[in-house]
């Protein structure tokens, strides 16, 4: 076994296709884009080297950037909070070989298939101050005082977007968890059952420890994708009202393309990249295998 697994040629053959395809396309533009963050470039004239100016400006002058960092962090926290526990719970609930489970799994995944535009339109009407469902329910409940312009209020806008995103993506994470649970050998579970373990103990002692690699995957995925979140924000609020939902990626797009300051945008991109890198390394460390 060991001999087979140490054969250099075999390793190269196995790793090469992915390595070549990936290396050809991603790293070079990545390095270029990192390099451009030290330039001033409007995408038309020649780039002009300005050293660390973009970064200095970002941290000392650009109040919107600082807001966007804060909002991104809130967004990541809320997304994890809203999506992961629910997805985990549902994944366990839906892998017990009982009736209707497949139906629920399929339906849960549906929203992630629908494009962001449709989701933003759905929630535009759900949160709509006049005809929206949320306000209608509040009125029926007699809590007129809570009636709100949900997406137009700086205090609630980000929260509302996070709820919409959770609605869309719980099924996505559920799918990843289901794969992990399915991989746990049945005999382990049966054995625990025979030993008299209840459902709760089963989850804590058998399922969760075995799910560690999968949990790690899903944590890294949700953190990185939340750092980079753009579509949901862009179509639902455009970063508004008054930058209350501005996140790093939307600020980057705004600067790089709409205001034609590509170098500045790349600087934001570089910071975003480093943040992702640090966070996922930390997650990997915390959930390291006990080998």
């Amino acid at each position: 076994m060991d001999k087979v697994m140490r054969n250099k040629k075999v390793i190269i053959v196995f790793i090469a296709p992915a390595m070549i395809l990936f290396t050809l396309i991603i790293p070079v533009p990545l390095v270029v884009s990192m390099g451009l963050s030290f330039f001033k470039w409007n995408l038309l004239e020649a780039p002009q080297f300005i050293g660390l100016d973009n970064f200095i400006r970002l941290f000392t002058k650009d109040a919107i950037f600082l807001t966007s960092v804060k909002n991104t962090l809130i967004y990541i926290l809320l997304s994890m909070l809203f999506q992961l526990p629910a997805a985990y719970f549902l994944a366990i609930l839906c892998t017990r070989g009982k009736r209707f489970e497949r139906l629920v799994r399929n339906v849960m995944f549906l929203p992630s298939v629908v494009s962001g535009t449709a989701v933003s339109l759905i929630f535009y009407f759900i949160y709509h101050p006049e005809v929206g469902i949320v306000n209608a329910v509040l009125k029926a409940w007699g809590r007129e005082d809570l009636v709100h312009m949900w997406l137009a209020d700086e205090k609630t806008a980000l929260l509302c977007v996070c709820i919409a995103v959770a609605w869309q993506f719980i099924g996505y994470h559920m799918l990843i968890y289901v794969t992990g649970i399915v991989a746990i050998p049945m005999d382990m579970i049966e054995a625990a059952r025979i030993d008299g373990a209840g459902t709760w103990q089963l989850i804590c002692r058998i399922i969760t420890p075995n799910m560690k690699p999968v949990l790690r995957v899903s944590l890294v995925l949700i953190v990185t994708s939340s750092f980079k979140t753009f579509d949901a924000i862009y179509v639902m609020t455009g970063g508004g009202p008054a930058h209350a939902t501005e996140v790093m990626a939307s600020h980057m797009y705004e600067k790089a393309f709409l205001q034609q300051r590509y170098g500045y945008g790349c600087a934001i991109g570089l910071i975003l990249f480093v943040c992702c890198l640090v966070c996922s390394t930390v997650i990997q460390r915390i959930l390291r295998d006990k080998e």
Partner: protein
Amino acid sequence: MKKKFVSILLTISMAAALLSGCGSQGADPGKDEAESKESAQEESADREAEEKAQGRDTEETGGAGEISGTITFWGLGTPDDPTNFVYPWMLENIKLFEEKYPDCKVEATWVANGDDYLTKLSTILASGEAPDVFRTYVNGRLEPYVTAGKVLPIDHLLETYPETASIMNENALASATFDGKAYAIPLQASSQGIFYNKKIFKECNVEVPTTYEELLAAIDTFNEKGITPFVAGISDPWPGTIPYELIYDRLNGVEAYEEAILNKGESFGDESFVKAGEIYKEMLEHGMYNEDLVSISDEEARVKFSNGEAAMKLCGTYAVALYGEALGEDAGIFNFPDIEGGKGSSNNWILSYNEAYAISSETKNQAAAEAFVAFIYSQDRQAAYAECGDLIACKNVKYDESKLSALAVECLQYMAGADYAILPWDVMLGTDVGAELNNTTLQIIRGGDPAKAFGELHDYAMDSWAQ
């Protein structure tokens, strides 16, 4: 270890090669600014000489039959959009152009909305393979294209095609002119006015207000009757700034506007800005808008106005066709009235020229590209566009006014008689400060203090312009 080092080196050198390729005309990013500017100027001088030589060629050999080959065209538009007249009109242009010049083919690429268009255009221009003819911008937003030498001046085109030259409107060309040369031709003239519902005005016994006081009184009357005076949707906040710009003009007049906005000479902390903000605040406190304006979109507000749910809507003339169709004879337009003691005039209109088309300096088929642009700016094609119901930037174009709605004709008359054209502020201030201006008026609409709001804008603008 050695291998790794080599691969890293390779990556870096590739990256460097790419980086230098990003610049226009292959200018070295390491060079200092003055040098690269100089070289760009030299290059553009070279190009001019070349153009002149080419120009002589075309004139000598002349004639429609000589123009051949394929050109690429990029436009902003989409089918199934009844408010977009450019798309169907341009498709017809291409068809007729290819009939007129059988050896020519136009390959069109369409992008549906402005942000996407800007993203795609910037990317392709950065890579140095621009389309031959493309929709571009005017004023400050066109300027970087000109400085970078991405677009050709149109003087050669106008020399070659006198018919097109004869319908050019100097005011419109002025918005695309830099250092005495025009680089693009605007298609649309677009204005902002107060559209009103004549039926509602009549039912409430309100006359078209001619003074600010009358406008306030009208707002009160409508509110008493339970009718929304102005409907607006500022989930994207720019429509909230338009009334402010008009108030500023009525109060402070044209000179103040030119000094502050065109020359960027006055600071936003100035008294004049705060005073205009206070008038706006007064109107807001009288309840000029629908309550939910901050959470609905401009599009939704337009639907509400077309359905007769509000007395007035401050809106761009791009909605003329929509209102003309929905409200028919009941739709009218007037401009923001005079303010007593103010230096401005109710005959100053916010007026801008948009949808400009330019020829890329990288075009390999200048003759065909010029022929195409000249063709879309021919007497017939401009008449066809005007008859769609949009306002055109060209002048001296004869067309059938009976094909337009009453509202469109009314608008045209006002535009023709305008004393002064105010450019929308955000166009002049640049996307960055322009966007913050919109956030400033949003703050006032939400009950913020004008002095504080403009103080913040002042700081933002000073910082942004200093850069």
